């Protein structure tokens, strides 16, 4: 076992799988010599050559669309979109094409394609770089949506994604890329999709989050513990498939729930969680499920991001309010 941060965990997953499976290839902007703008693909082109680690032209739709074709040819492409916000340029190839291809070909073709993309605020990126648009792709079924929050999951979920016969959108929390190291096995292992992790157990309230917001919830839980509020923290890990079972079981235990995400409030995936709890465990709720999210405005200038994103204070305040109602 080695201590790895998320960047290293991802790099290790890619290297392992390229070693194990000659069909696996990496493509995207600057994934070659530069090793990606965050260095997640560092060293790969040196090891596997420029035919398997490919710097593509600056054109997101073709990166995604070509990956679909590569998969039909029998390759296993792992494409990087430089920032999740730029999936917008390839939106039609990602949601409508990758997501529907198995269905529209009546099952003749499937797309073993992984699309990786960093996202999220907190690192003062230029505009469009921080946009948390994951919920948009939940509305284009056929795609699985993976949201690792820590190094161990980052590697295990990425290996699961690459091996999954269906297309996977794998979103990386750039704020946490180098936030800390933890034990990550050197060898290959997978973390299954659709199994949420209960990363902290508590009695009074359940915090539900994914990606970087899990770390925020953990900090909030610690702060709340000081005031005597004991919080469960559920890390969804994947939005599609969604682990309704764990989610509901944990909320039933505590009777109260606050959802935290970086995307704007309206029609964010938090709404789906809240609506699902409404349908599944309404009679077990002691208080309305709350949401702490970014506001319903475009991601503002980096100088304002701290006011825009869910903050420790806002999460704690929301939990306090939930506890009082």
């Amino acid at each position, binding site marked *: 076992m080695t201590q790895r941060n998320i960047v290293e965990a991802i790099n290790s997953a890619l290297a392992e799988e390229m070693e194990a499976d000659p069909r696996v290839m990496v493509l995207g902007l600057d994934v070659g010599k530069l090793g990606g703008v965050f260095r997640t693909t560092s060293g790969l082109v040196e090891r596997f050559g420029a035919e398997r680690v490919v710097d593509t032209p600056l054109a997101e739709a073709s990166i995604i669309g070509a990956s679909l074709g590569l998969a039909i040819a029998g*390759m296993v492409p792992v494409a990087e979109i430089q920032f999740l916000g730029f999936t917008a340029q390839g939106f039609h190839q990602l949601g409508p094409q990758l997501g529907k291809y198995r269905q529209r*070909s*009546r099952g003749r073709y499937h797309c073993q394609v992984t699309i990786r993309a960093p996202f999220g605020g907190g690192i003062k990126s230029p505009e469009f770089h921080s946009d948390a648009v994951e919920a948009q792709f939940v509305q284009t079924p056929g795609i699985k949506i993976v949201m690792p929050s820590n190094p161990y999951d980052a590697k295990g979920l990425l290996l699961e994604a690459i091996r999954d016969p269906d297309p996977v959108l794998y979103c990386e929390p750039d704020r946490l890329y180098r936030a800390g190291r933890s034990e990550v096995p050197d060898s290959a292992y997978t973390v299954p999709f659709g199994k949420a992790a209960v990363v902290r157990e508590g009695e009074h309230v359940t915090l539900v989050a994914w990606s970087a917001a899990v770390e925020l919830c953990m900090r909030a839980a610690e702060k709340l513990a000081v005031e005597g509020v004991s919080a469960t923290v559920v890390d969804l890990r994947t939005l599609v498939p969604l682990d309704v079972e764990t989610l509901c079981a944990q909320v039933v235990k505590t009777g109260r729930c606050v959802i935290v995400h970086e995307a704007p409030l309206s029609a964010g995936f938090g709404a789906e969680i809240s609506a699902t709890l409404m349908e599944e465990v309404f009679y077990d709720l002691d208080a309305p499920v709350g949401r702490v999210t970014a506001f319903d405005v475009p991601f503002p200038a980096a100088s304002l991001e701290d006011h825009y994103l869910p903050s420790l204070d806002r999460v704690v305040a929301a939990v306090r309010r939930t506890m009082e109602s």
Partner: protein
Amino acid sequence: MLSKNRPVDSRRSVLLPDGTVAPGAKSRMEEEFLLEALRWMMKSRLYDQRVIALQRQGEFGVYSPGMGQEASIIGSAMAVDPARDWMVPQYRELMATVHHGLPLEVITAQYLGKIGPARIPDGVRVLPTQVSIAAQLPHATGLAWGLRLRGEDSVVIAYIGDGGSSEGDFHEALNLAGVVKAPIVFFLQNNQWAISTSRRVQSATRSFALRAAGYGLEGAEVDGNDVMAVFDVTSEAIARARSGGGPTLIEAVTYRMGFHNTTDNPSRYQDPKEYEEARSRDPIERVQKYLAALGLWDAKREAALTEELRDENERALQLARSASVPRPEDVFANVYQDPPPRLVRQKAELLDGHDA
């Protein structure tokens, strides 16, 4: 300045509208092969006529006929090898995909709303028809690139229209193909229309083939109503791609002699004179004239072949009709390899007549 008026290398042409061969022109297509081409072109026209009638009776889905474009559709398809090459259609090349091995009853079943029976059989190297204009081109580039990486000696032929050439996907796919030296031929059927939008307002370029240079591809313009020239130009491009010479963009200049699709009414926007003029360049008639002059074609042969093809088409139609109809649960078919629990539950709800 690079003038926008620089001349396009001439449009390739062999068989003229009057059924004679252009002075000095020669084709790789021998007579027997041309008879085969004629057979497929007629099959295509007859199929169109039949299913349009069916659609009018409400039995067929929305359908875009290939009428007028048979030389492009068949000439290009005959230049590729179904045993190793791949075909990536838009939607108007139905008979090209059939030539490439897709059983007519299968693609017919698709228009009849069937699910399982409309599945492209394993081993048939055809991608599904694409309704999302130009979205097939990045797929085609990726497919060709992947075939090269896997060491196969296959080439991809990908179809696109004059309208589709305006989409960003066209640009991105052709540029990437040039960069990765994908073994691919982009076959652009310029039929002068994108629904009601005239070629004249689709682009200010004199020739779509001129775009090749901007991606480092070879480019060619061909009379798309001349099956011999289409076959020749496509064959050359396929051979080049197969031998590592990189991609080609072919513009086949033709004319949509039917409506856009069965919901369309061209009388709202089409000049009847233009249409009449186009009819005089019919791709099928010129082959018949040419073969007739050689003594290889006459009214009797035409009648016999027409009947034979009608029967063939009718058999496919019957097979498609009698194939199993979709069941409600097919809504959930072919989405994920292993449906997530939420879908399993939704499916059960649908079957129970309940909902979430």
